[in-house]
């Protein structure tokens, strides 16, 4: 796992966050153990809110392509960190674990993010759920996924080698919703290009950090007490 200071300027690149993760130590009293796909966003929230007492450790984001590996990896990480922090928070939603992560978090006595996936809590879990019934033909990208579209979508689905399989995967989807955490024209362009490659209508939705920020602030605030 890459060691790093708690600083956006020295944040490892996406490739490292995807395959190695991050271990950002700042001698904090509380720890967030999160998905590598959320590293930038969590660090941004911590920095913007002056939450210097929070350390961040990220597991490789690519674990998402094998959800069965997420819970064991998190258990190991929590176990290894216990005793060194006053409180530990898990920066994952359900993330395809079928409730497994929620059960593990309850057993370990740690909190976690709400919602099924990052695209639920970025948009706001309640708002996302309210929209879900009408929007189940949407495929979502976040900032991280827009940058890492090839590594997380195109290549694992074999579309680089077999583009003819595209409709087997995406034939029932209608649009690609890019949930923008930041306002970055380059990322918007990348997301739009991804939509075109998948044959989907493109929609950009500015979400900011949504429930990720709200939940982190509550957790980090409690940790200061």
């Amino acid at each position: 796992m890459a060691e790093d200071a708690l600083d956006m300027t020295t944040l490892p690149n996406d490739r490292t966050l995807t395959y190695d993760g991050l271990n950002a130590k700042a001698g904090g009293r509380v720890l967030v153990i999160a998905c590598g796909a959320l590293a930038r966003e969590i660090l941004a929230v911590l920095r913007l809110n002056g939450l210097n007492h929070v350390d961040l450790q990220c597991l490789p984001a690519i674990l998402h392509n094998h959800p069965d590996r997420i819970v064991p990896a998190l258990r190991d990480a929590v176990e290894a960190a216990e005793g060194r922090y006053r409180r530990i928070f898990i920066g994952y939603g359900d993330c395809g674990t079928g409730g497994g992560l929620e059960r593990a978090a309850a057993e370990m006595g740690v909190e976690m993010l709400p919602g099924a996936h990052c695209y639920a809590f970025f948009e706001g879990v309640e708002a996302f759920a309210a929209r879900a019934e009408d929007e189940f033909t949407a495929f979502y990208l976040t900032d991280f996924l827009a940058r890492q579209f090839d590594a997380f979508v195109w290549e694992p689905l074999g579309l680089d080698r077999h583009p003819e399989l595209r409709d087997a995967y995406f034939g029932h989807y209608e649009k690609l919703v890019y949930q923008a955490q930041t306002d970055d024209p380059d990322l918007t362009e990348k997301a739009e290009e991804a939509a075109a490659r998948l044959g989907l209508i493109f929609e950009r939705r500015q979400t900011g950090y949504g429930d990720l920020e709200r939940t982190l602030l509550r957790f980090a605030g409690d940790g200061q007490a």
Partner: protein
Amino acid sequence: MSDDQDDDIILSELEDEELVLQMHDDLYDGLKEEIEEGVNILLERGWEPYEVLTEALVGGMTIVGRDFRDGILFVPEVLLAANAMKAGMAILKPLLVETGAPRMGKMVIGTVKGDIHDIGKNLVSMMMEGAGFEVVDLGINNAVESYLEALKSEEADILGMSALLTTTMPYMKVVIDTMKAEGIRDDYIILVGGAPLNEEFGKAIGADAYCRDAAVAVETAKEFIARKHNQLAAG
């Protein structure tokens, strides 16, 4: 299983046994045209369509399924193999109707309401057909009414429900609870599947079984149908 030597192999020159093994390799490699050619050769040699289906196609797809389960093959390869098998089945289907094949039972299958994912469901449909089941595929985004209507009108034995999302899988319970309320739950074998499901969930919602992949679905369906026949015989 890909091999450069494959380019030199002329399927029509292979003995039956070698040809079937070669077809297993070709299926594994997702070679649709080779599978079509192999099916036609075996038929020309007088093989029964059902024999071609079970020995060459289902046999080959079983290897693919096993290697998928063991993490040797991944979804793209399985999809390519399935496309090849589907092409072979397209040749065989009309012949199977003409010549007759063992009828195992009838299944109504569909992805639940709010869910558009159908890769797993399509694999189950194909493998169930390959095993001699008649399959009525309702497609994606099925409301409870759609399942119930099809079960009745098709006089099905089995209901198969699939979901990929943690947010949509609870809908399976809505379907089963409605069947209970209408007093028809025990008239059908209910099998459920999908990536976020597990055995515990299957039990909790009142399904007969959770099937983790297409091969397990086929085996489970066969077991339940055999049990049903035994019960009828005993009754």
